[in-house]
C-alpha cells in the first residue's frame, strides 16, 4: 500500500516508518502540517496517518482542509489526548479512526490495514468461508467440515468480524469496537476470554487452528 505519515516526533516517526516499510508498504513522511497538505493533495495515498499536534498546521485543520478539497483518503489520527471529546472531534473533522499514544505498532498496523479500501466486496455476501469453515449469515449457522457448531450470538458476531476481515489482524480494541461498539480499553482481558471460548468451539475439537494469535497485535483468520 502507499501510505503517508505526518508526524513531527522523529523517534516515533522513524519507528513507524521502519515497521510499515518492513511490512512491505511504501511510506512517505513529513513533519509539517502545511507541507503535508500539498503533498496529500498531489498524491493518491491509500491511507494517511496524521498526528494531531503538528507544527505549521495542526492535524485536525489539515484533515478538515483535505476533506474540503475533496481528498477522501482514509485518515488515522494519532494523538496524545484520549478523551471522549477529543476522539469525537477527530472523527468530526473527517478522520476515519483514532489511535491514542502510546500505541503498540501492531495496533497501528492492524488499523491501517482495516482502513485501506478493499476491492469492492460483495455487500450481499451471505456465506463467509475460511478453509473448511462455512458461516451462513442468513440461516445463522456455522459448519466446519460436516460438523455443525453451536455458537452463542456474541461468539457468532466475533467470528463474523474475523471472517469478514479475513487475512487482516484484528486487535482487541478493534474487536471491542466492532462487536460491542465499545471505544475504550478495559483493564480486564475481556476479549481474550471471548476468543478463547470461541476457539474452544471452532478450533479445539478439530485439531486445526483457524483463529491465530498475532503476538503484540491481536487475532486473525488467514485468508
Amino acid at each position, binding site marked *: 500500500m502507499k501510505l503517508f505519515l505526518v508526524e513531527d516526533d522523529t523517534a516515533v516517526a522513524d519507528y513507524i516508518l521502519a515497521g510499515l516499510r518492513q511490512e512491505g508498504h511504501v511510506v512517505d513522511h513529513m513533519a509539517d502540517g502545511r507541507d503535508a497538505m500539498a503533498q496529500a493533495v498531489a498524491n493518491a495515498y491509500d491511507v494517511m496517518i496524521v498526528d494531531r499536534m503538528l507544527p505549521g498546521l495542526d492535524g485536525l485543520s489539515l484533515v478538515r482542509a483535505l476533506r474540503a478539497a475533496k481528498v477522501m483518503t482514509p485518515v488515522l489520527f494519532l494523538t496524545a489526548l484520549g478523551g471522549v471529546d477529543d476522539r469525537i472531534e477527530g472523527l468530526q473533522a473527517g478522520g476515519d479512526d483514532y489511535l491514542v499514544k502510546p500505541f503498540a*505498532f501492531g495496533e497501528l498496523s492492524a488499523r491501517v490495514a482495516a482502513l485501506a479500501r478493499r476491492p469492492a466486496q460483495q455487500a450481499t455476501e451471505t456465506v463467509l468461508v475460511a478453509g473448511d469453515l462455512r458461516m451462513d449469515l442468513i440461516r445463522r449457522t456455522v459448519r466446519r467440515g460436516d460438523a455443525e457448531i453451536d455458537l452463542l450470538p456474541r461468539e457468532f458476531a466475533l467470528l463474523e468480524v474475523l471472517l469478514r476481515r479475513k487475512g487482516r489482524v484484528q486487535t482487541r480494541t478493534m474487536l471491542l469496537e466492532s462487536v460491542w461498539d465499545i471505544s475504550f480499553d478495559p483493564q480486564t482481558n475481556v476479549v481474550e476470554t*471471548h476468543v478463547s471460548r470461541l476457539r474452544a468451539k471452532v478450533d479445539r475439537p478439530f485439531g486445526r487452528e483457524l483463529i491465530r494469535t498475532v503476538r503484540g497485535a491481536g487475532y486473525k483468520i488467514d485468508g
Partner: protein
Amino acid sequence: MADGEGARPHGLLRSTPVRQAIGVVTLMAVVGAATTTVAFLRVREGLEETIRTSLDQTAAGLSTARTAADLRNLVVAEAGATDPELRIIVLVLADGRSVGNAEARLDGGMPSVAPLSAERPLSDHGYEFRVIADDRGTLILGETREGIDDISAVFIAQAAFSLVPTLLFSLLAALAIAARSARRVVQIEDVLGRLAAGDLSARVAEDPGRRDDLSRIAGRLDRMAAAQEASVAALRQISADIAHDLKTPVQRLALLLADLRDQTDEGSPGAALADRAMAEADRAVAVFQSLLQIAQIEGGTPKSRFRAVDLSAVVATFADVYGPAVEDGGHTLTVEVPPQDAVWVQGDRDLLGQVVANLLENALRHTPGGSAIRLSLRHDGASAVLSVADDGPGIPAAERPLVLRRLYRCEASRTTEGNGLGLALVAAIADLHEARLDLSDNAPGLVVSLALPLVAPPAAGADPATAAWTDAPCPLAPAPRPPSVRAD
C-alpha cells in the same frame, strides 16, 4: 434586548418585578379605597349630625306647646307648611287618631309611615326618626336621608370615574415596566442555565449604556463566564501540553521496548523482562490516561453531546462483554434488568458504559474467587438506579467516601491490582450526569449504586445514542444482541 425573548407568559407571573408591580398597585388600590371610605364615612357622619340637629330644632319648636290642644294645633300648623318628602311631623293622640303631614304609627316601638295622599308623596330614601311620647300624645318626627344617599352616589361615581381608571392605568404601566425587567432577568437566568449546562460561551451582552442594578449583575456574570471559559481553555491546553510532553517519551519508550522484545529470543529471560517492562509502561499510561480523563470531565465536558441513552442496553452490552471474564475468574455474575425494554436517561453513552465497566472491574478485583457479583438496573420513582453489588469483603463505612478520591486505595487492597482511579472516574462521571452515587453495605460486601433521572424515550426517527457515534471506525459493526438468546 430582543423583544419577547424568554418572556414566557407563565413565567411572567412568577417573576419578582411583575409580582412587585402587582403588589404596589394592589397597595395603591387598598390605600385609595381606604381613604375614599374614610372620607365617605366622615361626610356621612356630618350629614347625620345635621339631620339630628334639625330634628332637635323641630322638637324644640314643638316643645313650646303647653297643653295637648296647643301641641295639636302647633303640629297641624307646622305639618301643613312642611313637605313630607323632606320632613315628617305627626302627632298620634291618646285615642289613636293622628294629625300631621303623613300617616304614621308605631310598630313595636319603630315608626312606620305612609303618605296621606298621592299629592303628598314620601321620600324614597327613608327617614331618620325621633319619637317623643308624653301625656299629650306621641310625637313622631322624621327627617329625610336623601342627602346621605346623594353623597353615597357621589362617592361611588368618584370611585368609578377616578380611582378605578387610575388604578388600571398604573397597573398596566407597572406591568409593562416590570415585564421589561422580568425579560432581562429571564435572559440572565437563561445565560446561567447555559453556563451550568457547559456552554461557556453564553453571555448576557447587555447594552453598555445601561447603568442599573440588572446591567451590573449582567456585566459581572459575563466577566465571570469569560474567566471560566478562559480557565477551562487553559486547563484543556495544559492537559493537551502535558499529555503531549509526557506521552511522546512514553511512546518512544514503548516502541523501543517493543523493538527490544522483537530482537529477544522467545522464552528467554530477556523476553520476559521486556514483557514486564512493557506491562509497567502500559500501567503508567493507564494511570495517566485516567487522571487526564477525570480532569477533562471535571473541567467541563460539554453536555451538548448528551443524548437519550438506553441504560438497559448499556447494561446488557457490558454484562455480555464481561460475562466470560467474570466466570473465568471464578466469580458469578447475575444480571437483573427491568422487564420493560428500555430505560432512558440523558447522558453520554461511552461514559455511562465506562461506569458499568469500572464498577464490574472493581468488584472483580477486590473480591475473592467464588464471590457473586450482581449487576442490576431498576426503576425507583423518577430515577433509574444502576447498581453493582458483590459479597466480598466490602469497604468500612468510614472509608467509603475516601475511595471516591483520586488515587486513594484501601489499606486492605494495597496489595491487589488497580490504580485507585476507577471509582474516582465513576464519581466524576456521576457528577457530570447529576446522578447520585451511593456506596453502601451489602452485608456482606459492597453495593455501589448510581441514580440517574429518567427521561422520556426519544421520538421515533430521532438519533438516540444507542445508535452510537455514527462515524464509528468499523463499518461492519453488527448490533449487539441480547446475551441470553442462543443462535440456531
